[in-house]
């Protein structure tokens, strides 16, 4: 402690230019450590995607090239991408169709047990994924929905609904009621007011919900694997299969491709999801 105090006061006693340089160096080091911690794991993926052969214990690949990129782009990956994309779109559309009116009701009307209803949507995420999805798979088998697109869509919606309901309820709640009252006052029916006032003002929330739900569905793995196998293929399942088959190059490429929608989501969310909406989160 004593030595630390002495070192600290020695630092503070440095003349001004010396202290600035020291502080700048510390900051640079901190930034570099952060970059390394965040990007080093990803660098492994990037290296693997450009590898042709790489055997342990060599620290670097023996042969590199675009071989596997070519192989992947000519292979099954596109089927997985298309299928996953289609499922994500269907899930998003169905989820929004169901949740937007529900969110409006929850936001504007005195619904009993509002908090309980909102929490019910959260339940699938409250439990470990595997037991939830295994049980769901059994149910879907009995309903003859397993290994089908519809089954996968359903299992995705179970987890996706909460993102849309919670976001849209908060967004509708953040729109001042006087804006809707002004429209009723001038003669607009409640439905017309919903479409001309509430919904346009909720657009940023809609965008955020769409992206959250889409990304959830696009990235969803456990449920898709259990319910969809063997016929329904999405990108995460494809990535899993190829990595299990020791085709790490293919898995790395799939992983890198999977990251792109996520990055796009973060950029768009940062722009659209304003703090006013988030302040309503949890204020049930």
């Amino acid at each position, binding site marked *: 402690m004593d030595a630390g105090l002495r070192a600290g006061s020695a630092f503070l006693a440095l003349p001004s230019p010396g202290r600035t340089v020291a502080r700048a160096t510390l900051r640079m080091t901190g930034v570099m450590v952060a970059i390394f911690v965040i990007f080093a794991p990803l660098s492994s993926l990037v290296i693997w995607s450009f590898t042709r052969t790489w055997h342990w214990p060599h620290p670097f690949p023996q042969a590199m090239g675009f071989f596997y990129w070519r192989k992947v782009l000519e292979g099954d990956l596109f089927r997985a991408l298309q299928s996953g994309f289609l499922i994500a779109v269907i899930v998003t559309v169905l989820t929004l169709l169901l949740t937007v009116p529900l969110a409006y009701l929850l936001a504007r009307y005195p619904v009993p047990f509002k908090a309980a209803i909102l929490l019910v949507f959260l339940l699938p995420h409250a439990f470990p994924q595997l037991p939830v999805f295994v049980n769901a798979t059994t149910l879907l088998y009995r309903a003859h929905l397993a290994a089908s697109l519809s089954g996968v869509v359903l299992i995705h919606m179970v987890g996706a609904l909460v993102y849309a309901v919670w976001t849209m309820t908060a967004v509708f709640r953040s729109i001042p009621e006087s804006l809707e009252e002004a429209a009723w*006052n001038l003669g607009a029916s409640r439905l017309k007011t919903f479409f001309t006032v509430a919904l346009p003002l909720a657009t940023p929330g809609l965008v955020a919900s769409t992206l959250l739900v889409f990304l959830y569905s696009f990235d969803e793995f456990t449920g898709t694997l259990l319910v969809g196998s063997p016929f329904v293929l999405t990108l995460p399942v494809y990535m899993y299969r190829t990595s299990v088959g020791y085709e790490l190059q293919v898995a790395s490429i799939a992983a890198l491709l999977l990251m792109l929608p996520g990055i796009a989501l973060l950029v768009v969310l940062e722009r659209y999801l304003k703090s006013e909406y988030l302040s309503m989160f949890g204020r049930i």
Partner: protein
Amino acid sequence: MDVRVEGLVKRYGRVTALDGVSLAFPAAGLTAILGPSGCGKTTLLRSLAGFMPLDGGRILFGVEDVTALPPQARNTAMVFQQYALWPHMTVFDNIAYGLRLRKLSGAEVRARVEKALDLVEIGRIAGVTQRRPGELSGGQQQRVALARALVVEPRVLLMDEPLSNLDAKVRQRLRAEVRRLQKAVGITTVYVTHDQEEALAIADTVVLMDGGRVVQTGTPQDVYFRPENAFAAEFLGVSNQLSGTADADGLSVGTQHVSYSGPLRGPVTIVFKATDAILADSGVAADGRHAVLRGMLEERLFLGSAYRHYVRVEGESLMIDGAEPVDHGPVTVRVPMARLQIYASP
């Protein structure tokens, strides 16, 4: 269009917001509903608009009972305290909204919107129709809200403290504008405010409310100069209250005595306005037409238009306004007997 409400009752759980309110709003007149927070004035306004289902009573527009009608069918127009302009629409679309609902032609809509903008005197601003509400000042936004309400030619214009979000100078100016507009258009207007100066300035009829009940109605002069009870006397103007006891040979206020020839006996409340009293140095004698009270001048504030003196009389702190400053120390407060409002204490 004459508007009448009869026996309006509205309860929120155990709180009674409207307790059997009956009022008449004269056609083409501006009726101001004045009162402290929680007196029920906004509840009354919102029930006129149809936003609030009532627990009892009726609302009549002319001869039509509109109590059961939803807000869309009542043909009223409301100007909100927060303006309630739609931020995702231009000024033009905001004003045109009501007209488009009535399926008017594009040319008709454009003509009426421009007429409304001229009426509220912002038609001259370049490009105002294409601006969003967020790009306008508070005063301009309120004018747009007013235009939006007037353009649909409603039966009743309802105004919910429309100027309280604006700063003092803008408020003063818009006050006169609102009155001018209302007279020009000739529309029955109900104007809710907690600012009594505003109510007195623009209203034809003032309705004073407290605790869900109507305390007094009348012209602004009636309510200001001839308040019917202690609450009304105290609410209007800058008022002072003293407790006293009335008996056959006068009023006793603490240890002091004021001549009194009225009929009340027993504990009374005496109310007079800060501008009705005159401060003089101690030693001025009483005469039949003035009440004279002795007190101690404790504080003096400069308001610009007058000096406000805080005088302690029999334990109460009174406010006396005057053009000339008076020094601290013992003083005499003289109030013309005619300006003393005396009410029996409950």
